[in-house]
């Protein structure tokens, strides 16, 4: 490689790194710093405080709790529905299975607002359901299910699950036993990856949720929008800080699991 090309590549990489820093890391950090600054307009010289974080906690603790509840219930539903669905779609195969898979995947392509509108049109009349946070769960399940199904199916594709299933059946295992003893344990990396994806997506989902929420069923991102619109800047920033603190461990865990299943995949 010529020194000229080396320098070009280096310059390109440097420019990319700086761009990431400028547009991703710096704004995020600034926002978080703003959340602990006494007065943003006077800058960090005004001193640091946790009062905005406390205020967020007082005003929005319920949205945080609700967001986690929604995420966990969404996860439970996608696990109970998505894993057996992925298994059935994979083992059955054929055109019907592919069509169903595409239908499940459709919500990825449709704007969240449109899905929310469709849900409201169809089920908005059931007022108890519409007013409860389970209505948001329904929207989140529609939105996150393809991620679960896809990531579990990817694993099934990699481990010849059909023959494993047949060999367990030849040893006398009922369909239910086979699913629990053989299918689920061997699909674990995919299930874990799918679960983290579902939780992360659900926690951060705004689009759908904004349409589906009521004043009493705000989630964290909706509360964030609310605080941006109606609170002072420091409170909104403190809210961002709270959101980061919650979401980053999840992202790190997701990355770790992804790495581990990559390594396991390589060993096979």
């Amino acid at each position: 490689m010529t020194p000229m090309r080396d320098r070009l590549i280096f310059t390109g990489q440097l420019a990319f790194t700086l761009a990431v820093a400028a547009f991703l890391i710096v704004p995020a950090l600034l926002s978080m710093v703003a959340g602990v600054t006494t007065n943003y307009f006077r800058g960090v010289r005004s001193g640091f405080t946790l009062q905005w974080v406390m205020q967020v906690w007082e005003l929005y603790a319920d949205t945080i709790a609700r967001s986690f509840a929604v995420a966990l219930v969404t996860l439970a539903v996608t696990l109970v529905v998505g894993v057996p669905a992925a298994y059935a779609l994979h083992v059955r195969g054929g055109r019907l299975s592919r069509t169903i898979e595409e239908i499940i995947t459709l919500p990825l392509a449709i704007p969240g607002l449109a899905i929310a509108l469709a849900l409201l049109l169809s089920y908005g009349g059931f007022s108890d359901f519409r007013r409860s946070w389970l209505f948001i769960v329904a929207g989140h399940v529609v939105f996150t299910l393809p991620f679960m199904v896809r990531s579990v199916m990817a694993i099934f594709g990699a481990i010849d699950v059909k023959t494993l299933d047949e060999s367990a059946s030849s040893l006398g295992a009922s369909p239910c036993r086979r699913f629990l003893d053989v299918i689920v344990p061997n699909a674990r990396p995919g299930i874990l990856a799918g679960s983290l994806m579902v939780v992360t997506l659900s926690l951060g989902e705004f689009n759908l949720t904004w349409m589906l929420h009521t004043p009493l069923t705000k989630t964290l991102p909706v509360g964030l929008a609310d605080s941006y619109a109606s609170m002072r800047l420091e409170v909104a920033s403190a809210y961002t800080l709270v959101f980061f603190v919650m979401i980053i461990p999840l992202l790190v865990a997701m990355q770790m699991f992804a790495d581990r299943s990559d390594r396991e995949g390589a060993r096979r």
Partner: protein
Amino acid sequence: MTVTQGVTVSVEGCAKTFADGTRALEPVTLDVARGETIVFLGPSGCGKTTLLRIVAGLERPDAGGRVLFNGTDVTGVTIEHRNVGMVFQSYALFPNMNVAKNIGYGLRIRGVGRAEREARVAELVALTGIEGLEQRRIDQLSGGQRQRVALARAVAARPSVLLLDEPLTALDAALRERLRWELDRLLRALGITTIYVTHDQAEAMALGDRVVVMRKGGIAQIGTPRDIYFAPANRFVAEFVGAANLVEASATNGTLMLPGGRLAIADSSAAGAVVAMIRPEAFQVIAAEGAALSGHVERVSFVGDRQRLTVSGAAGRPLMIDASNALEVQIGERIGLTVDPRAVRVLSGERQ
């Protein structure tokens, strides 16, 4: 000591048409004796695996077909209730369980107590010679070790019938040869009714009490390895099982008239234009002078334990002949050939 166990297996008129309309199996009827090892042999796509899967309960035969174990109709019984043991080509060992847990899985499903289970696993570990590997993960095993674990797992719960689907195909040639003997020893020791599927005729010969040669979804011939080798029913069996020279000639009074001379045959009833099969090793090379049949050596291929000659001019098409590796022969040389009359097999109903 051989303890014969297992059931008789009967297949009655089992055909298989897949959902897309492909006819994988023509109606097949077949009986397997108790304790017998029967081999389904044929090229890929001949329906042998489909037939095995029908016996296993992994496929249902088309309407009208029946599978019976010990005379009891099991056609509608799912595989998990048929009490079969099965070894898959890919072994399909459970990666989430270690070796001992894989072997003990069928016993665990049947609710066998821990102590008894461990004793049986230890017994099978010893029988298959995989001592010391009990706690290994599946991805830490070699191909041969996996094959043994798969076999141990399949027989652990004392199945009525053992089904093996190309169990040696995934291994390299040298290992395959060694495991073939080992498998033969094990099957004899277990004395269990066994159905073995393979496309390798040497494997079929070495392992089978009887061999079912299959072709295009049907049975071409059923017989002992010697039957199908020395007395193939037709051209397909002759050519698929071992190497064969198919010679077209006219027969009269126990003699085949060939371009390069004549050959005595044991079958004196053969008359007119016939197709006869002669195995390459049945020929003996003799001096050309005074020989009843002779030809020219066209090619010599030395393979160590023997040499294969291609001899032209003796029959309508060049003959393959296995000669002793000590024989000194030149290309272009004229040699005489002789064959034991009993080794010339006239194939009935074959025309060019």
